[in-house]
């Protein structure tokens, strides 16, 4: 895949996005300074554990943060040159579903259980593309065929509960791609699915991406999914970007102890069994973050400076950054091993 910016224009640029929530325990900085650039046709993976801020970051992109208690307190989200944060609610609604589409983890809760599949698909293009009923129906069936629903014409009039989990996720994808969006945000799209169905859905997203030229943001906790699907990766922890790099580089030469730990704690099905590395401790309580690096209490190489001072976002290569006091040392170690 070409990463030449002269042929691949930038579709989305996020600058210093911060989304905070007011809670009983105080302000929770769910997303605290996320920046990235996504080129046309590229896939960005956002990896993190629960509470890392990966989903909030993406809900912020399309302004779906419930306010209150949430609030996007700063940042710019430049989509096709326009700042999404400065648009009117109506303008955001126009972008949502048309130029930016989302698929979520649980298709059952994202589909209306009382509405036929065909009707739900038709609504999208009737709303956004001004399709007539007939056009919308034809398009709906075409989309269902595209995502591999067998007997699409007959099954289009089923209700969601008559479909299996994998089929429902296909319907979600069909719906998301109905208006040929420029950006598809997939939030844990395969987490609720079995592994053979996961493989089908990931293949489908890859194929449709190649056919439509859409950019994709793939949010997942699964490093294996990221390895096979993405061009760039952002690793989030406690609302912060801990590491950001091209995918091959991140896996070969991680420059952050958290990323290294995550990579080592996933059992490799192709390797010999051995003792599995484990990151000690628990993810932090975002309302009570320690003063220094949020990962310091769990980090095996933490020193006093890590516990007292917030770490710098170190540039390791022009495209590879790591939030760590010892980023250069960790990177050098990884280089030595790879």
């Amino acid at each position, binding site marked *: 895949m070409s990463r030449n910016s002269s042929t691949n224009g930038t579709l989305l640029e996020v600058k210093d996005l911060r989304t905070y929530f007011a809670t009983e325990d105080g302000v929770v900085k769910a997303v605290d300074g996320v920046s990235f650039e996504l080129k046309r046709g590229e896939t960005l993976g956002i990896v993190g*554990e*629960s509470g890392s801020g990966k989903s909030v970051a993406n809900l912020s992109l399309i302004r779906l943060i419930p306010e209150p208690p949430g609030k996007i307190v700063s940042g710019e989200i430049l989509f096709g040159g326009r700042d999404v944060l400065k648009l009117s609610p109506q303008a955001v609604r126009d972008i949502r579903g048309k130029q930016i589409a989302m698929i979520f983890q649980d298709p059952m809760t994202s589909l209306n259980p009382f509405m036929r599949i065909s009707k739900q698909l038709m609504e999208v293009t009737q709303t956004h593309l001004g399709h007539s009923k007939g056009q919308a129906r034809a398009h709906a069936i075409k989309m269902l065929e595209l995502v591999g629903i*067998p007997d699409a014409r007959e099954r289009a009039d089923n209700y969601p509960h008559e479909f*299996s*989990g*994998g*089929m429902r996720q296909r319907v979600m994808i069909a719906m998301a791609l109905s208006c040929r969006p420029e950006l598809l945000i997939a939030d844990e799209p395969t987490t609720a699915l*079995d*592994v*053979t*169905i*996961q*493989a*089908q859905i*990931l*293949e489908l997203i890859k194929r449709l991406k190649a056919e439509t030229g859409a950019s994709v943001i793939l949010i997942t*906790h*699964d*490093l*294996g*999914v*990221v*390895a*096979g699907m993405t061009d760039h990766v952002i690793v989030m922890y406690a609302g912060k970007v801990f590491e950001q790099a091209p*995918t*091959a580089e991140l*896996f*070969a030469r991680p420059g952050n102890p958290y990323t290294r*730990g*995550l*990579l080592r*704690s*996933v*059992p*490799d*099905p*192709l390797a*010999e*069994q051995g*003792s*599995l*590395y*484990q*990151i*000690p401790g*628990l*993810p932090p309580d975002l309302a009570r973050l320690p003063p220094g690096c949020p990962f310091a209490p*769990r980090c095996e190489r933490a020193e006093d400076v890590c516990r007292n001072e917030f770490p710098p976002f170190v540039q390791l290569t022009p495209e590879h950054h790591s939030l760590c006091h010892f980023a250069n040392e960790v990177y050098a170690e990884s280089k030595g091993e790879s």
Partner: protein
Amino acid sequence: MEAEREPLISIRDLKVHFPATGGSLFGRARRTVKAVDGVTLDIYPGETLGLVGESGCGKSTLGRAILRLTEPTSGEVLFRGQDLAHLSNSDMRAQRRYLQIIFQDPYASLNPRMTVSQIIGEPIDTFRLARGSEKRRRVQDLMETVGLSARFLKRYPHEFSGGQRQRIGIARALAVQPDFIVADEPISALDVSIQAQIMNLLDRLRREQALTYLFISHDLRAIRHVSDRVAVMYLGKIVELAPAKNIYAQPLMPYTKALISAVPVADPKVELTRRRVVLEGDVPSPMNPPRGCRFHTRCPYAIDDCREVEPQLVQIKPNHFAACIRISPEQPDIDRVAAGDAPGLRLKA
């Protein structure tokens, strides 16, 4: 390898069928879901047997049926010379001391109104294993064993994270010093970094306390890591059984091949070059499983015979069993079997 050892648990042709009402509102048709449909399996002392399969394959029902948390329809579960499947309820209760379970959902499986000390202490009371200060000491020891501070004894489940709750569930299972534990998706609800902690904890406990596990999971990476042997289940039947290493390196049966090739590997270089067997379609309904080989509707290798003949689990390589008529000990590699041939059919003669 296992030939001379006595199994701790012997499952013989175990079936669990559930009645299901189908049809329209008026004409109710009586049907059965054959969740477990004739499973024969030995579990050896000290081993972790991984049981893997997709949702609806019957793996959890099998685990529960062994412990009689779900009543088996027929078959035997032999444990220390007794058939658990046919014990009276009171005799079975006595056996539960040796047979424990850890559940998937650490949120739903702990009583929210009980303190941690009450939760872990309950089985100790039930089986009258200790009282008073002796019991308190035991509960404290168990907390430490699973990596929880004894300071937390008076706290309630909601005050803990998912990983910590799973540790409480493990401590509760260990409280009676069991021989055998069914771990039913024990890490599925947990974050990646916490999954590794729980897998390592379970492994350490097995070695220290001479435990035997049936580790049930849909996560093939976890199964590979924790298991000595792996059993693959599809629509109520075991379709492949082998040492973990062999089954991942050389899966024999097409379903296992597809499952293993579908597992994402956290290495972009590997992912780029892997050949993936992407299966068509979904798992058929267990209410109406396909005739012959139950996998034939999705199997890229299926031939006409597969639609008719139900394959038996046979030894194809040493300690490596598979249920597929298209392979045999002489021709274990399905990719090299002649088109349309079913060498497995000639075995019975």
